[in-house]
Structure formats: C-alpha cells, structure tokens
C-alpha cells in the first residue's frame, strides 16, 4: 500500500510520521518547503510532545518522484488545495484522496482532480519546531467518510481508518462524516477569527463577556446552516467553546498564529464556507460575513505594511 501526504506541514507531518512506522506502507511526503523535505530525507521525521515518533517517510518537492498511490491525505492550508492537487493529480489516477484540512470546500476541489474522495476532519494539532521535527500539541481523533458527490467506497474508507489507527492516529470510519466536520468547522469559525482580530488566546477571549456572547451568536448561525443542510452535529460547538476555555486557556488559534506572523489566513474556508452554504440553503449569516470581511481587511493591512500594535506583531 502506498500513501502520499499532500502538504507536509505540522498536520501532514503527524500523519506522515505515524504512517511511516508501519512496515508494509510506503509513505510519500509532498511539500514545497525545501528545508523540511531535505531534513526528512537526511534524518527522518521526528515527532515530540503528545507523540514520540521517529520514522522515515520518503519526501520530495517534485511530484514526478512519487509513484501512483492508493491513498492521498491532503493537509495543506485550504487556500493551497487547488495548486497542490494540480501538481499531484497524476499520483492519484486510481487513488482515493482524503482531506484532513480546516474548513469546508476542500473536498469539492479535490474531486476535480481525484477519482474518489474522502471527507475528513482531524483534531490533533502541532507546530513545526525545526525542519524535520514537529511538536504535537494536542491529541484527538480523526473522522473520515465518503465524500457524497464523488465517494470513495466504504471499504476503502475503512482500510484507511484501520491503518491510521494502527499507526497511532485514532481514526473512525463513518458513512456520514459531515457531522464531525461541521462541528469542528463551526467551532473554528466562531473562535479562530475572534483570536486573530483581538490578539487574544482562546480562554482570555472567552473571559470578555461581550466576546463570549459574540462567539455564541456565530455558533448559532453555523448551527442554523448545518441544520438546513440536514447535518447532525457530533456535539454542541458552544460546549466545545466552554471546554476549550478550561483546557486550552492560553492556546493561540491557528488563525491568531497566522495573524501574528502576518500570513494569509483560512478565513475563506471557515467563515466564507459557512456564508456560501448559508446562501445555498437560504440561511442568513450576517455575522460570519462580517467576520470574513474583517479578517480580509486585516490581511489587506499587512499588504499595506500598516504599523499595527504590538499585539499583532
């Protein structure tokens, strides 16, 4: 069995490093970061923190190096899905490709390039410590299921889930994985931009009563869209907000990390995704649309080299 990880940043590295521990799987990591790729080739890929792993996946920046694969796991930032799939489409001529990215809309793009698609959602998070070395910050499960418009077979989904679980990444195969995806989407879309726009870690933001109220209002809009789509959520995102208030008080959401580094954010796949599905189903989402415009505005300020305050540095 051959698996290609498309986009081997922090999340992609968690998948690549775990899977490469299994002797009968050939793992390829595709990434554009030359230093990370070279480090993996020279000394393997190391995980620390919640996992301790040192394994040796193949790594390359050149898609032509990669043999045809049975499975793809796409872990790029959502704005890079299209270019990454364009580059690697040949690898998956007969493969099933699974997104484990943030937001919604990635599977639709993958389906333009791959014959069979798997909808996935993953909770583990990490960050790159140095090339070849990723720290896993949080554990958690991964949920995968056939992407309805262009589905992989349930048998395939089960194979991938079993192998990931064997490798140490607990993964659940389900007929309908939209509930898990939308639970995480709504949680992220309600909390990530609040961090990015205020500079506050999750728990500190929740301490401000007006902000906590706003987060609930954003969650409510997301739940209304999910309901209109007929999606049954795994759990109440509002309860996840309170849970994270306790267990991830000083956690800086990925979008806040992007804002601090002045990198493009995933707002279009998060809040923009909720707005798009809201339009499709006739559910108004004025607050997510406002958040989308505000985060795009913040990104525009970086392009203008506006000075900003220390909190944004």
């Amino acid at each position, binding site marked *: 069995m051959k698996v290609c990880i498309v986009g081997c940043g922090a999340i992609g590295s968690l998948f690549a490093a775990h899977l490469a521990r299994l002797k009968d799987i050939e793992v390829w990591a595709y990434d554009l970061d030359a230093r990370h790729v070279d480090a993996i080739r020279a000394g393997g890929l190391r995980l620390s923190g919640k996992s301790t792993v040192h394994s040796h996946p193949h790594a390359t920046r050149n898609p032509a190096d990669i043999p045809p694969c049975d499975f793809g796991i796409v872990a790029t930032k959502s704005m890079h899905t299209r270019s990454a799939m364009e580059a690697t489409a040949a690898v998956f001529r007969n493969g099933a490709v699974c997104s484990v990215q943030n937001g919604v809309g990635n599977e639709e793009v993958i389906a333009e390039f791959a014959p069979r698609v798997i909808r996935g959602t993953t909770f583990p998070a990490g960050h790159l410590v140095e090339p070849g070395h990723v720290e896993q910050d949080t554990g958690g499960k991964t949920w995968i299921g056939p992407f309805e418009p262009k589905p992989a077979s349930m048998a395939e989904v089960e194979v991938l889930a079993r192998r990931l679980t064997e490798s140490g990444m607990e993964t659940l195969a389900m007929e309908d994985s939209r509930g898990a995806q939308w639970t995480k989407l709504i949680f992220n879309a309600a909390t990530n931009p609040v961090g990015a726009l205020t500079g*506050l870690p999750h728990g500190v933001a929740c301490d401000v009563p007006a902000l906590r109220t*706003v987060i609930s209002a954003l969650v409510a809009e997301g739940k209304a869209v999910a309901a209109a789509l007929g999606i049954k959520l795994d759990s109440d995102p509002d309860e996840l907000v309170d849970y994270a208030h306790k267990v991830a008080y000083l956690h800086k959401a990925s979008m806040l990390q992007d804002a601090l580094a002045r990198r493009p954010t995933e707002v279009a796949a998060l809040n923009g995704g909720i707005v798009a599905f809201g339009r499709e189903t006739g559910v108004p989402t004025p607050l997510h*649309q406002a958040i989308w*415009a505000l985060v795009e*505005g913040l990104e*525009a300020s970086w392009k203008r080299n506006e000075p900003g*305050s220390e909190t944004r540095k």
Partner: protein
Amino acid sequence: MSGIRSVCVVGAGAIGSLFAGHLASVVETKLLVRRKEHAEALNRQGLKVTGKSQLHSRVTAATDPAQLEPVDLIIVATKASAVAAAAKHLSGHFPGTTVMTVQNGLGCEDVIAQHGDWPVISSITFMSGIRHSDVEVEYELDTETWMGPWSKGSADFAVTRAAAELIVSSGLRAKAFEDVRPAQWSKLIFNSVVNSIGAVTNLPHVRDFARTDRPADLGTLVRAMMNEGKAVAAAQGIKLYEDPWEMNVRAVSHGQTGLEDYAHVFSMLSDVRARQLTEIDWLTGAIVREARRVGVPVPIHELLFALVKGIEHGWST
C-alpha cells in the same frame, strides 16, 4: 457682537488647542489643563497655531478652576473618556455658565449634567489638528463644527448661535442648528462604523471601505452596519442630516486633503496602535445602548463593540 467676552477651554489636546488658539485672537481665553508644566508653558509662551491658520496668542492657563475668573462660555474639549473627570473638576465652579461639549459620540452631555446645572450646547466637530507640542498645534482639516442646544438641557438657541458666531469670527468654521441631533447622529453612525472597523482591521480609511462587489468586501460590511445605525436613528424619530454611507464614499473618493493616496488614520486606530483606551463606549457602544432602548437589533455593532473591547482587554492582561 456675541455678548461672549471670555471663554474657558477645558483640555488642550489637538481640538482644545485649536479652539483656544483661534478664540484667543478675538476674545479673552483661558485654558484648564491637567499638567502643571503644560499650564506654565502656555502662560509663558502663549499658544501657536500653524497650518491653515497662522496665529500666536496670549492665553491664561491653570490646572485648578478656582484659579480662573468667571467666563461666559466653557468648551469641554477633552477626550470622551476624560469628560467625567473634567466635569467633576468643574463641579461647583462657573455657576450658570453655558458648557459646550465637542466629543465624538453620544453621552458626554449627560455626564456633564450629572456634575452641575450648566446649560449645555451639544456639538460635533469635523476639524482636525496635529499637536506638535504643549504650545503649538497645526490646523489640518478646516471643516465645520456643528452645534445646537442639548435636547435634554436648558441652553437656548440664541446662546448657541452667539457661540457659533464667535467661533466663526475667530477663523474656524461653525454652524448653529436648532436641533443638532440629525447632524450628530449622521456623524455618530459614520464614526461608530468606520472607526471600529478601522481599529479591528488595522486599516486607515482606504477605498476598500466603499467597495461592495463581493459579500466579503469591506464596503458591504460598512453599508450593512450603517443600515443598523440608521434603523436606530429612525426608531428614535431622528431624520439624518446626511447619509453616513455617502459621507463614507466621499471620504474615500479623493481624501479631504485632495491627495490621491491619502487615507485618514481614524482616532480609534491611533489609540489601538498606541495601546490607549479607545472611545468605543461613546461610539459603537452608544449605538448598542440606544438600540436596546428602542428595541432595534444591531448584531454587527455588537460584534465590532465586542472585538474592540477584546483588543483593549489584551493590554490589561
């Protein structure tokens, strides 16, 4: 001409210095400031205005109202957040003297009225200045100050008109209205929206504030939020003097300076960059409060209010 022979300006930031620097050329002008060194410098060197006006006048400055002779008009020109302290300081002094407020937003008149039974003139100013030192201010935008008797107070229109005439005679631009609320609300809605969005996005007043091609365009948000403010004004029976959206489009079309690339850095954005408390409570927060009073939903204002509160919270933790 006006019957106003002496004025006391409270607060000598950019706006206070502009009023005092101009008024001192036509009428006896006193300044009440917070810092002793500031008062001493003003007494020693006078107050200089550069830019659109060239003036250098003698003024009398003090830190304690007890040190000042009675005056005919008081102009409170502190930031909104400092009005309560200023009003407390004035309490018991200048009985019966008309007090004019020039702060952004709503609610400063109420704060003044809590500390004395002075007749109150509400005003809003569009002029701007750059304070170069304790004794020098540059007159930047020579736009108008709009004033009218406070709707809940006892100032009359004749006094308001006299004050406006005095201000005009000193070289500034001003207009007296029987009811200033239509003008005040036009500016309140405009400022509540563009100031808070600028503070949260870290953007000055760039052209994107009027772009409405996509749902995620900033102008789409500006317009939706202004519609909330307009609904609150309508529910209060206030007919706006100017459409805030048109004010926004005009402000980004050429820039009031005429420079192609000019983008005004909002006062709230300056405050955020300097990590100073903003005027959010008197702007966006005022709309949220007024909306609750009349039962009009303003979810986007609540969002921007909360985000700016969150930014401020970050400095205190």
